[in-house]
């Protein structure tokens, strides 16, 4: 028996949550996964209010899912899949092709230094301009740090397709930010 929950792997914690309904296990998994899920919600949906709702719903379903699954190999991908499905449903419900950029979408809880970084705000704006499939692949790769293969499995698309989407997303963001990047390089 390990003395701290931080010493358990994601799969072990999920198993604990499944068999014992362990609050501590959920708490530890939340600590590990919440940033990934939150980043996905916020950067893919673009709306803070929607992101908050989907974030809550994701973890509620994630905890409930432990009743059905005793074991999971990739818990993070599973949580993100729940989140993605909820995001897609939300997008369909809203029936709006483009999500209006929310100036306050930036989490008020982030550090002040980060808030003041113009570059980060521009990245956020650039992400809003990307097509959904590119944005999703980019967020999963860059924000959530998933390997290409995991993204491929999660999105149920070919590995090469994932790479192409991420590649195009990067290039697109670079093009959008090019004037700013050039200005920055002069300084």
């Amino acid at each position: 028996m390990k003395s701290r929950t931080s010493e358990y792997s994601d799969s072990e914690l999920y198993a604990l949550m499944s068999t014992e309904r362990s609050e501590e296990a959920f708490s530890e998994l939340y600590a590990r996964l919440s940033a990934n899920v939150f980043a996905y919600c916020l950067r893919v949906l673009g709306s803070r209010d929607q992101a908050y709702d989907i974030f809550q719903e994701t973890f509620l379903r994630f905890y409930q899912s432990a009743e059905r699954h005793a074991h999971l190999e990739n818990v993070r991908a599973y949580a993100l899949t729940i989140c993605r499905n909820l995001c897609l449903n939300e997008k369909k419900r809203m029936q709006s092709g483009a999500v209006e950029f929310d100036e306050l979408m930036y989490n008020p809880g982030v550090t002040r230094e980060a808030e003041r970084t113009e570059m980060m705000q521009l990245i956020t704006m650039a992400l809003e301009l990307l097509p959904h499939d590119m944005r999703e692949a980019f967020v999963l790769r860059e924000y959530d740090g998933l390997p290409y293969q995991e993204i491929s499995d999660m999105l149920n698309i070919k590995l090469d397709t994932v790479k192409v989407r991420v590649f195009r997303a990067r290039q697109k963001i670079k093009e959008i930010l090019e004037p700013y990047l050039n200005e920055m390089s002069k300084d």
Partner: protein
Amino acid sequence: MQQHTTWIHNLLDGELSAHDEPSLFGELSVNTDLRTEFKQQLAIRSAVQHDRMALVPPAHLTNTVFSGLGFAAPMAGAAAGAAGGGFMLPWLMKLGLPILSAAAAIGVTMAVSNAPTNQNAINTNAINTNAINTNAISSNAGETASSVASTPASSDAEEMLTALRGENRRLRGALANAQSDDQGNQQPPEPSPAKQSPTPAPQVQPPTEPLADDYQRPASVAVSSIDLTSSMSFDNSRDLQTIETQIMPAQMTYTPYPSPMLQARGFAASSLSDVNVPNQSVWYENFAVAFLYQVSPKHAFGVEVGSESFAQSFDGESNGQTIRYEQRPSSIWWGGLYRYTAGSIGKTAFSPFMQAFAGGTQYGPLGRATLGMQYSPSGPLSFIVGIEGTLLGYKFQDSWFTSSKVGLTYGMAVRL
């Protein structure tokens, strides 16, 4: 160019083959445009990484999730950082609770200590009044027929004057006896102007009226004159000291050192880390009890145990990802302390003190330095108010982190 761009992306993903590396680096060294593109991709990646690190769910969202599942607020959970609001506002918000607590503590201390302080002031006034009277008598000793005007201020003054009158009577009695003995033992020869002593024989004039009656006069007290010869003296200072000791025994006679002491204190401190996760509070939060052994008025050693929460913000690795943890766990701490108390400020009962504490918690070692003021009125009680800084060291995944706090402390100690 397209090939080189692909290589840059592969490099960023950590998937560039060893075979392609020399080609890419060679091209980067000569191709300015490619170098610019590489820098731009690095800048984007860096910004995304910072953005990702800043994207943590706010505390209220975390609480909503947990309360939705029927759980208590998490000990560890990602949470928001500090909100904006200028430089001073966060500090004022942080220090608001400590300042209010200190004000409350000072109020309680003053309320508790006011009664004995006033009583002492009355006694001191009485002593001063009496001292004036006595000094007046002293200055008049040896002179003839002088008077001092005085108005008694309290019953203590009355007692003092009564004592002085008693002393006066004793002296007069002694003088009268000495005179009668002298007259009785010497057979007076026939008075002869040639053998007469140049110094007249000592004489004590009887009081014109009883002293008790003098004291009854409301406006002024006329201390009757005393004629003292050079063969008699009146040590006023010694008599005064004796009288003061009788009136104020508590201040002059105090428990000698060494002595054990039991201290209870509360504290209100703010973390210097920006962690917005709510405290994991317990009923005995921000409270400490200490047992001190005061070896001298200046030096004391002791042990202390208390409980408080510490804001912790640290990064860890999980599944190849960097995760930021933020938590405010409550922890019981314990350890040893040394206190140096400087001398009283002037003639007040206030003494500055410094205290160093070294101990530990379940998370790691704990150090604390306190600078404050000790108020020790008469009796075994004393009160402290001070500022203190705390530093906790803790370890996570083989990396050490620290959590620091500053705040105010206030408490009470009793000598056993």
